[in-house]
């Protein structure tokens, strides 16, 4: 597991640095591009966990779709080149404590539920058949709920976009 551990730490440090750059950079588009690095790092971590399908989904959904739409939206409306001064606002004081609380809560949840549990020495790549058996078996209800939420979002978008 040594190679995977080294890989994990390299990617993890890269992700943390990029995540900090997302909030400290003074340009909206730069922030979005740093976020791309964070999301790509997450995909890399999934690959280290032998979760091939999740990693590819991460790239397809977050880098290929969400971030492209994000950049598309900002470029269409307000993205200037160079430093912008009005990116910081007073919510910063509220945001930092909330972020720290989230970090502690998630850290506790992870250590409490997994403890000293270790990954198997030779992790087996999970096949798509197993993933789909899980989604359309025990996790069918959450899957339906998610689909319903997305459908509601689509209907909402259409209602907002319609002129009449």
């Amino acid at each position, binding site marked *: 597991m040594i190679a995977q551990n080294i890989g994990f730490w390299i990617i993890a440090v890269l992700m943390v640095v990029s995540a900090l750059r997302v909030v400290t950079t003074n340009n909206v588009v730069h922030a979005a591009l740093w976020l791309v690095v964070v999301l790509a790092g997450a995909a890399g971590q999934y690959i280290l966990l032998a979760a091939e399908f999740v990693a590819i989904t991460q790239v397809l959904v977050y880098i*290929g779709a969400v971030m492209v739409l994000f950049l598309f939206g900002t470029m269409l409306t307000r993205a200037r080149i160079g430093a912008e001064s009005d990116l910081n606002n007073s919510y910063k004081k509220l945001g930092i404590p909330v972020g720290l609380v989230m970090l502690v809560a998630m850290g506790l949840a992870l250590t409490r539920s997994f403890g000293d549990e270790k990954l198997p020495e030779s992790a087996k790549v999970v096949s798509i058949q197993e993933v789909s058996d899980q989604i359309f078996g025990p996790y069918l209800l959450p899957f339906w709920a998610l689909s319903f939420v997305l459908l509601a979002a689509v209907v909402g978008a259409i209602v907002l976009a319609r002129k009449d």
Partner: protein
Amino acid sequence: MSALLAEVPYWGQSLLRVLGGIVAVLLPAGTIVYIFLFKMMSFMQSRLGPMEAGPYGSMQLFAEVGKWLQKEDIVPERADARIFKMAPVIVLLSTFLLVAVVPFGPDAWFTDFETGIFYALAVSSISVLGILIAGWSSANKYSLLGGLRAAGQLIAYELPMVLAVIGVVIQAETMNLQKIVVAQNSGSMFGIDTFGHPYVISQFIGFVIFMIAIQAELTQAPFDMPIAESELVSGYMTEYSGFRFLIFFIGEFATAGVFAMIASVLFLGGWGVPFSWFGWTSIDSIDNWMNVVGPLIMFTKMMLLVFIIMWIRFSYPRLREDQLQRFAWKGLIPVALLNIAVTSILKVVF
């Protein structure tokens, strides 16, 4: 490649894979540019095309590359220099990532991904990112408009492309490109197994949708709104010169080649010939010479598909933005969804 390279150490394998990837990207790109862009377009327009450099102008490409390499690398004064320089590399990176899953023979592959086609669709969408930031960082209104048009178009046409692939995945029962090739060449149609079962026949609607979608993904006319030269100078590429323009140029035609390879794997049986011709029963019983002949078969099929793409490119005028979006959302996507429904019903019934 697993069997061929069993004795080579891991670093040697990696080096050979990188070299193979470079060949698999650049060789088709060069051939496509010379045969189709230089010669076929010229003949369609009743002229000879380049004739001076080398016999029949065949060395023209090297002359062009040499010309681009010695041009000055200009970055506009108000541009975002770092991102401006990064953008073409991201576009070319997506092409190199894409070629990694294409199988060229029974043992001649770079990686044997279980989720091959899904991976290909995912990494092909990375190029949109490069195009968007190229348009934005140029500090040029034409470039920005070109980048935004490109993003809108590429998102719209990625959907029918994904949906068209699902039909093939349902029929082959796998996302592994190698297994899709085997499924087509060892299958049979109506009990006759002389021709295998290329999905271009049973998935003809999917094939047509996929080809239209890759035409749009490659921003080839009639879908060349993002680089419309009469409206936007050259779209997101306007400010690029020399080496960086060359990277965009290689990226465009290399991606055309790789997409055509993926289309030939999905619909035309890829590197294979029907297994019944030589009495092969599974992928392990295929003779070793297929590792040499396979890439050639693949190359032929790729050239055939690129010929169709270029033929359409040189024949049709540009679509308008609203026509382009309506065609994707109201035309291709409903048909592709219907195709999936019909395919899955037939798959369950038979």
